[in-house]
């Protein structure tokens, strides 16, 4: 991979919002931000807090680094509440405090095969990962989602990858998706490593099948975060070896066997 797997440095920068790009559904939006000089590992995230927020809301908001180029840092965001709604209506050129890259990303080796399991917005950290991977043929992806496929940047992914997208709109779809996950995980278990990101119920299912299949997997978790730097102790998750740890520092990516979900 052309990115180093180690974070070189971190900083808090006041960056300009270069532009917004809305998907088919306006609740799905890509934010393009002026790029700081740091390098990142896919799976790492940034904290965003526009200057204009004043004193409300108080917290910044965490987002996976979807992609970083010389021109921009890109965030792929779904509007779910006040913070994301304010961000999605931010004025181009407005100033946003951004700090990162934060946490531990996916540990990757260019030679290995990976099965990527993304649930909904969990696709975000994989965009850069896949697009920048030197051998996309080594990657396969199963993408489960509820909204129309056009909401997500699925089609951007390299054609050399094996990509499968599965939409769930009802209970039956969900069950089918669960079966596919189990099948694919057990089939892939001996061939490489699994990377997964998505909502908690999705990760719980993935973890269960991974452990059953004795597969090796890295899971990226989402928790409520106030600081992103390890100070507030709000984002803790339970791990088998170390008890409660900050997911913003020790995560968001953890070995599947480590996590108590």
């Amino acid at each position, binding site marked *: 991979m052309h990115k180093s797997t180690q974070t070189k440095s971190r900083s808090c920068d006041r960056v300009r919002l270069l532009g917004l790009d809305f998907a088919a559904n306006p609740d799905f939006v890509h934010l393009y931000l002026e790029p700081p000089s740091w390098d990142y590992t896919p799976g790492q995230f940034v904290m965003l807090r526009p200057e204009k927020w004043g004193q409300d809301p108080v917290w910044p908001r965490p987002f996976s680094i979807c992609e970083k180029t010389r021109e921009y840092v890109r965030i792929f965001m779904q509007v779910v509440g006040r913070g994301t709604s304010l961000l999605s209506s931010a004025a181009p050129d407005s100033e946003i405090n951004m700090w990162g890259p934060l946490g531990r990303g996916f540990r990757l080796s260019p030679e290995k095969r990976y099965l990527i399991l993304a649930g909904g917005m969990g696709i975000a950290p994989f965009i850069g990962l896949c697009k920048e991977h030197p051998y996309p043929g080594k990657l396969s992806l199963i993408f489960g989602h509820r909204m129309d496929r056009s909401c997500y940047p699925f089609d951007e992914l390299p054609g050399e990858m094996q990509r499968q997208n599965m939409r769930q709109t009802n209970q039956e779809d969900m069950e089918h998706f669960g079966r596919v996950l189990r099948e694919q995980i057990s089939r892939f278990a001996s061939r490489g490593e699994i990377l997964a990101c998505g909502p908690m119920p999705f990760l719980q299912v993935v973890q269960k099948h991974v452990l059953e299949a004795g597969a090796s997997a890295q899971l990226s978790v989402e928790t*409520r975060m106030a600081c992103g730097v390890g*100070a507030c102790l709000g984002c*803790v998750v339970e791990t088998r070896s170390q008890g409660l740890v900050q997911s913003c520092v020790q995560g968001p990516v953890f070995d599947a066997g480590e996590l108590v979900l």
Partner: protein
Amino acid sequence: MDISVDLGGLRLKNPIMSASGTFGYGLEFSPYGDLQKLGAIVVKGLSLHPRSGNPTPRITETPCGMLNAIGLQNVGVEKFLAQKLPFLPADETPVVANLYAQGAEEFVELAAILGDAPRVGALEVNISCPNVRCGGVQFGQDPEAAASVTREVRRASPDKPLIIKLSPNVTDIRVIARAVRDAGADVISLINTLGGMAVDIHSRKPRLANIVGGLSGPAVKPVALKMVYEVCSEVDIPVIGLGGICNARDVLEFIMVGAHAVQVGTANFMRPDLIFDLVDELPGLLAELGAESLEDFRGSLETQ
């Protein structure tokens, strides 16, 4: 511009301290600024033994503020002394240990250990955390209990400057302030968090697993400012003001009502380099206001 202060023997080059529990063990913020710039670093509340804290969720956002019920998760005093303290620039920027215990005996033991620790500049005793069931808040809400903890800790650590941190959840803060001053506190800091609660009507559950928590951030600033004003008018020892401070203007509001120094808490979450900027901005703002020094500005509120 002289912005140094003397806090009961603890000399700070500027009045900007971090607030306990919002700045980790200090090191978390070193990528974002030079820790040596700060007046002092108050670390996360330490207990005799490591604590894993409360179940999650432990934090939730509220209008212009937040609630927390971390429950004093910390590495314990030994690990702090061995693994955290050595990496802090304690010669340049005093490290203040924040003490939490469930009873007087534990406080005494903790104070004895930290009182002897060479790189610890002062002790701040948290008699006001609302997030732990036994101990905690009771001390801070009753003048006699507050006085007795103060006396015990004073005895166990006779040399280090002793800061007692008060709870705002009381009918009359002045009564508690007098009690701890009389019992030997060198400095008083306030406010800790206000008791609060948030619920989710969809899940019908409290937003914190602990049900109730402590409110902090800009929302509480007016409450903090009033209590700091009252305590400064009541007792003659130095006071550290905190509660909702977000910018240099807020800092000077607390100084103007009489505080010697301030602590920055929840605002560290808004932006990890915010506290460093405050240090830079303070002298300029003081000059703009026509003050000759921080001390010149202190207590300058005109109530005619």
